[in-house]
């Protein structure tokens, strides 16, 4: 099925479908990833236009990013510095001397019909990133890690955006014409290219997923990009090829474009392995081509064939002088790098006394920063984890928000934990406080005051409620008097209900037992 939906009504084939497990039992996958990240610099790469997302069409433009005749690019120091930060964090070497190059091809969303990029002299080369597969334990029970080699990190400019009009689908094919907005044109884009990742076996989709996730977290921690995949500030192309197990030769690779969520990275590799296995099984040849991943169906379809490799006629950009980052600048940038996610994860895991698996859960929930800050605000690691991973994760999930986007601060959570710890609140009341804070009713203290939430542990107030509960439940009272102490829970529940949850449950239990037993 996948190939039959290719463009131009491609020839339908009668390939047998191959399941994933079967595919990876007979073929070794080889993957490679090219990731484009829009830098979070204030201005575009070569001009002073704002690099902010969106905006009214064609309002973030000037002669330079519109490529008007006579205009000239001047690179932003910040963009160079960010790229070096990324390179250093990925354990790359930073070029002592390198140049921008022009990549020549005609396309209406590219104002100059060439892209200023880097070709054979990238700013950063030859590094690595260690990634951890959260769900897959290795033979020793520890999470499995892979070291993904980094081929290069370079800097280039983004293109404008075309909107295809007319036709049935709003897509490029069948459109009558297109409308172009150049606000995005010229925004600084860093391209991070991995070396081919071998030896993953069936874990190839997981490694791809873990790599992009780890890279995303790394970029976020470096403060170089907001890395919002949904806004296109991080975009992935995934290369996949297969080797018949034991053959020692690799099939042709395909490049799957526009894989724009973490889950899609995984699904795209998964789907492409299945498809290529079917092609090989049918005795056919995988075609070197660009493929497009479809979020809805989870499959890839054929894009442009690369049979006739495009010649971009690269040459050194004459309008820009070479880059020769002084070594002391590079070292200064290295010294200013924040603690990187992997190192930080290991440190915090030890400090908090939790397992690697728990750490992975925290990481996957995007709660690491929040929990760390909550602990810094005075909560215990157990309390901080408990509130963020349970109650708050549930509420974030309900509203489809990121944890970090909930309108509650780590300090709020620490304050709530403290109130529970002191006995002023119980868990149930604490949940009400959280609800109030999220509803914008103020700080935890303000919510407690406004809602009149407080554990009632004053014996005089509680004794009345206890007496009422005993009177209303003579059978239960009788059982307790008869020695069935466990039945006290029913009376505690009744008291709690009567006090709308504000009673100190343990004190209530003591008072009930004092009334009904000799102890």
């Amino acid at each position: 099925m996948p190939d039959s939906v290719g463009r131009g009504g491609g020839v339908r084939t009668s390939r047998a479908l191959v399941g994933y497990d079967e595919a990876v039992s007979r073929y070794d996958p080889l993957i490679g990833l090219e990731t484009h990240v829009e830098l979070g610099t204030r201005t575009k790469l070569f001009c002073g236009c704002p690099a902010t997302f969106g905006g009214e069409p064609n309002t973030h433009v000037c002669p330079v990013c519109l490529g008007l005749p006579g205009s000239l690019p001047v690179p932003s120091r910040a963009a160079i510095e960010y790229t070096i930060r990324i390179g250093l964090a990925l354990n790359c070497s930073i070029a002592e001397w390198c140049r921008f190059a022009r990549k020549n091809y005609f396309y209406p969303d590219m104002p100059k019909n060439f892209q200023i990029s880097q070709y054979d002299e990238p700013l950063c080369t030859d590094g690595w990133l260690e990634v951890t597969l959260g769900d897959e334990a290795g033979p020793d029970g520890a999470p499995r890690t892979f070291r993904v080699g980094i081929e290069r990190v370079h800097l280039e400019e983004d293109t404008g955006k075309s909107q295809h009009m007319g036709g049935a689908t709003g897509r490029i094919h069948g459109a009558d014409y297109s409308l172009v907005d150049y606000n995005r044109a010229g925004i600084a884009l860093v391209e991070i290219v991995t070396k081919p990742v071998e030896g993953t076996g069936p874990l190839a989709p997981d490694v791809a997923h873990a790599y992009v996730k780890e890279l995303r977290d790394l970029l976020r921690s470096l403060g170089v990009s907001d890395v919002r995949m949904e806004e296109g500030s991080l975009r992935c192309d995934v290369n996949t090829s297969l080797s018949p197990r034991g053959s020692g030769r690799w099939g042709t690779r395909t490049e799957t474009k526009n894989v724009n969520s973490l889950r899609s990275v995984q699904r795209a590799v998964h789907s492409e392995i299945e498809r290529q296995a079917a092609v090989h099984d049918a005795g056919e040849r995988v075609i070197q081509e660009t493929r497009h991943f479809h979020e809805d169906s989870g499959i890839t379809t054929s894009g442009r064939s690369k049979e006739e490799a495009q010649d971009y006629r690269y040459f050194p950009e004459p309008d820009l002088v070479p880059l020769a980052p002084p070594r002391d600048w590079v070292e200064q940038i290295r010294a200013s790098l924040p603690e990187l996610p992997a190192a930080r994860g290991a440190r915090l895991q030890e400090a908090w006394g939790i397992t690697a698996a728990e750490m992975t859960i925290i990481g996957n929930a995007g709660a690491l920063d929040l929990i760390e800050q909550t602990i810094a605000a005075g909560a215990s690691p157990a309390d901080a984890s408990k509130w963020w991973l349970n109650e708050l994760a549930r509420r974030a999930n309900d509203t489809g928000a990121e944890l970090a986007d909930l309108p509650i601060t780590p300090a709020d959570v620490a304050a709530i934990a403290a109130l529970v710890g002191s006995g002023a609140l119980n868990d149930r009341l604490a949940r009400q406080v959280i609800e109030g804070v999220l509803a914008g009713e103020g700080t935890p203290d303000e919510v407690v005051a406004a809602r009149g939430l407080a554990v009632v542990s004053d014996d005089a107030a509680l004794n009345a409620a206890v007496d009422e509960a005993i009177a209303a439940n003579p059978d239960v009272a009788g059982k307790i008097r008869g020695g069935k102490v466990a039945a006290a829970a029913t009376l505690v529940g009744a008291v709690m209900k009567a006090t709308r949850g504000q009673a100190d449950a343990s004190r209530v239990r003591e008072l009930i037992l004092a009334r009904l037993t000799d102890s």
Partner: protein
Amino acid sequence: MAELFRMSAAEIAAAVRDGEASAAEVTDAHLARIEQVDPQVRAFLHVAADQAREAARAVDRRRAAGEELGPLAGVPLALKDVFTTKDMPTTCGSAILGDWLPPYDATITRRLREAGVVILGKTNMDEFAMGSSTENSAFGPSHNPWDLGRVPGGSSGGSSAAVAAHEAPLGIGTDTGGSIRQPGAVCGVVGVKPTYGGNSRYGVVAFASSLDTPGPLARTVLDAALLHEVMSGHDPCDATSIDAPVPPVVAAARQADVGGMTIGVVPEFTGEGFQPGVLARFGEAVELLESLGAKVTEVSCPHFSYALPAYYLIAPSECSSNLARFDAMRYGIRVGDDGTHSAEEVMALTRAQGFGAEVKRRIMLGTYALSSGYYDAYYGKAQQVRTLIIRDFEAAFDRVDVLISPTTPTTAFPLGERVDDPMAMYLADLCTIPSDLAGNAALSVPCGLSPEDGLPVGLQIMAPVLADDRMYRVGAAVEAALDARRGYPLLNDAKGLA
């Protein structure tokens, strides 16, 4: 006082400063001169009379208010139509830009305005500065004021013809392979290619980015120097602009003394293929320099003979990329957008109709030279030759202060003679190209008339990077000696205008 339009820029500036003439009068005199002679010369593509008069009045107001005026305030100027101007169309001599009105001023345009220079209009040029005759202009050629049947040189031929025809005392051109010095030489005026990076390229529509150099044209060396200092200097909008003080060219032009200088003659540029009259005048210039106290020696630059082929790989390569933006999508004309053609087809139809033959030749040549299979043999090799030419210059400048040669192998050639013979046309830049490839400064100063045809001959003086002042010293000395010997300015002999 002489007729206003015959005065030099220095004289006009002094007259305006001293209140002997208003900037408005000066401007009117030049506009009248343009009206009178430009139908024959065709130097201008666009005359901005209203804006020029307003700029002149602003200078007069500033003077009346007691403000101090700059060295060229109130002096009219002819601007090559490759510099962007907010208030005038910019065509680059091409049909493809249509009636494009740039939304911004080139840095040099802005500096001229700030200095109170009066921009009279935009001058004709070979399309996108590719050519040596202005015959590649989509709007027809300009004519040489010495002989209207001959070319004014190119690509800055409109500016050189305007200056030679006394339509403006100053002109600005751009030099990529000789496009200021060659038209200067064949029109009998001074043409200067400053050090690459000394003048901002921001707002100069690019032909070959690593070579394009804006520079002055004038009737005297001092005027060229005055304009040089006004237009030059570091520009943060041009990453290739040099952040260093402008060489003291005005002082050098006033010094006009070659005593104690060592001058090298490049033997590669004095032999076969040169018009005898050109060589005769060049030989006399060498003797003159010796008589003025310079030590003249011969310095071989063996790789200069490969400069022309290297240039015709590097410049077209860069141009094929620079001119890709003219694609009918954002500005300029659009051809074939009738609903049946794709964007790709509209681009190709527009470019086929909007570009002239020379531009097409160079775009295709550059596309060829940059193709992956040919890159090393053509573009890569040309870049190595560029290194060798730089080394030739460095070795030469270890021994001498400046190098000299004829500016062009021949005097102005007849219109139409080379228009469909690209290789013959390319030879016009034989002597000027090495300085473009190496980025150093060079100046052409008239050194007499060729006896065969009575047309001007240029002496080229080449100086090291950022030593532009040296060539002004030499040029001014030659000019002063020849003017003194002749008794009147050379341009008085120009009899082409009816």
